[in-house]
């Protein structure tokens, strides 16, 4: 699944530019201008396939119309650009907070 959303496997369908991402996100008010400024380096040239968005939705069991896929693809791209910042981090020695119980931790 992650390969399908990754940059190297997105060759089908129209290329979505960063400008389009920003316009769509602004239209929906999903993300603000401050966040646009923090889009990950390289986001401007990355590509996202509408076909990929459609396939991921299908795998998740959700039906999206062609029009909705077209609307959503740039937003997915924008969110991934922000979240991909986490991938810069080496947290291999860190246990995730899967069970969140602060009372069991020493302070």
């Amino acid at each position: 699944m992650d390969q399908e959303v990754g940059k190297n496997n997105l060759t089908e369908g129209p290329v979505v530019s960063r400008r389009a991402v920003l316009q769509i996100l602004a239209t929906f008010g999903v993300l603000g201008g401050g966040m646009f400024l923090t889009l990950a380096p390289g986001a401007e040239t990355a590509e996202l396939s509408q076909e990929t968005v459609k396939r991921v939705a299908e795998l998740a069991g959700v039906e999206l119309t062609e029009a909705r896929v077209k609307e959503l693809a740039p937003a997915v791209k924008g969110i991934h650009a922000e979240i991909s910042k986490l991938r810069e981090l080496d947290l291999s020695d860190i246990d995730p907070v899967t069970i969140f119980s602060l009372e069991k931790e020493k302070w």
Partner: protein
Amino acid sequence: MAELYSYTVGQLAELIRRKQVSPVEVTKSVLDRIDQLDGRIKSYVTVSRDEAMESAQEAEKAIMAGKYLGPLHGIPISLKDNVLTKGILTTYGSKVLSDFVPTYDATIVERFKQAGAVILGKTNPHEFAWGVFSPPTKNPWDLEGDPGGSSGGSGAAVAADLAIASIGTDTGGSIRIPASLCGIVGLKQTYGRVSKFGVMAHSYSLDHAGPMTKNVEDAALLLQAIAGWDPKDPSTANVPVPNYSRALTGKIRGIRLGIPKEHFYADLDPEVQQAVEKAINVLQRLGASVEEFSMPHLKYGLAAILAVELTSSTTYHARYMKRINEYQPDVRTLVELGLFMLATDYLKAEQLRRVLINEAREAFKRVDVMITPTEPITAWKTGQATIKIGAKEVSVLDASWRNTFPYNLTGLPAISVPCGFSKAGLPIGLQIAGKPFDEETILRVAHAYEVNTDWHLKKPSL
């Protein structure tokens, strides 16, 4: 004598205990105020008038019979419309739930009822406590202004004296943001301190339900009633609940105030910066010292909260996916976006939360509380997308939760108290955060600040 609707919980509790004021009089006063003003403020989805008057009459009878239950007995409070109330419409601000009437009470509602509180009704949230577009609620300080969210109805209701106190929920700042923008007190206690059983989910490990009040004393009183382990909610902690009111000594000599080096003080409205600096000076004059601390990984915080919030919110919404066309466009987009989160990114975000908790733990070796502005800006106009801070144009959405979401990621307790007004007359909030389950210290510092200033006494002209 001022109108009863304008009193605090603490003031009314004393009058009710002495039988100088009846819960029926208080409830009627607030309901009349709602009739008079809420057509303009639009803070309520549902006003449960008959149930409220019935509860008030029962409280009056009990008190006259010598069965006084404590400081919430006979006090009219409202609840955000994502808190389940048996027999009272609970919409979560959505058309999808426009006719949903729960068959049981949330644990916090049960506890309020056990304490004798009167449930006034349900306040307007953002749809499903998500999204960008505000509900119709107006900010009482500027009727063209946004009250913030997602507990904007509760914030506006308390600020406009349409409830003596209220309960909001907070996943990225939704109690503290409207508290700051509406000039009231908002407390998000430690994750696990208060039961979420019967509080409709938004993002399981980030959600909190907590008090929104006219002053710090009232926040302590409400927290006292709802805090504590709940066998129905596995996320609650079996940690003893102290007497919060006893922490309100007014004394903070020797308290170490932590000022963060990163994140919280960037891109502040100059009027906010000035108000917060003055507030810190007040605390220093009361005997607190100031120490800087660092949480360098907060620069990844936005990515982490998006990964966690989008993923878990979409998981919750799976049950309504077939009706997603009925959602507001912004909420629908956010819910659909959650489908595209990678499990590996989600877990990386949970790893980052551990890093942030570790950094906070290190900071708390040197400081007792963290002091920041609650909001970098004051209330924006309804529908306004960006705002200028100096020469920089920033998104109001981005700014609005920047200083609040770190305490959802870390689960630490944080309170917002009024600390000034802009030249345009809009409230400014001071955020005080503390160690896990140490609500006493943040309440103590907030209360000491409050009793040495008068920002919390100011009321909007309505």
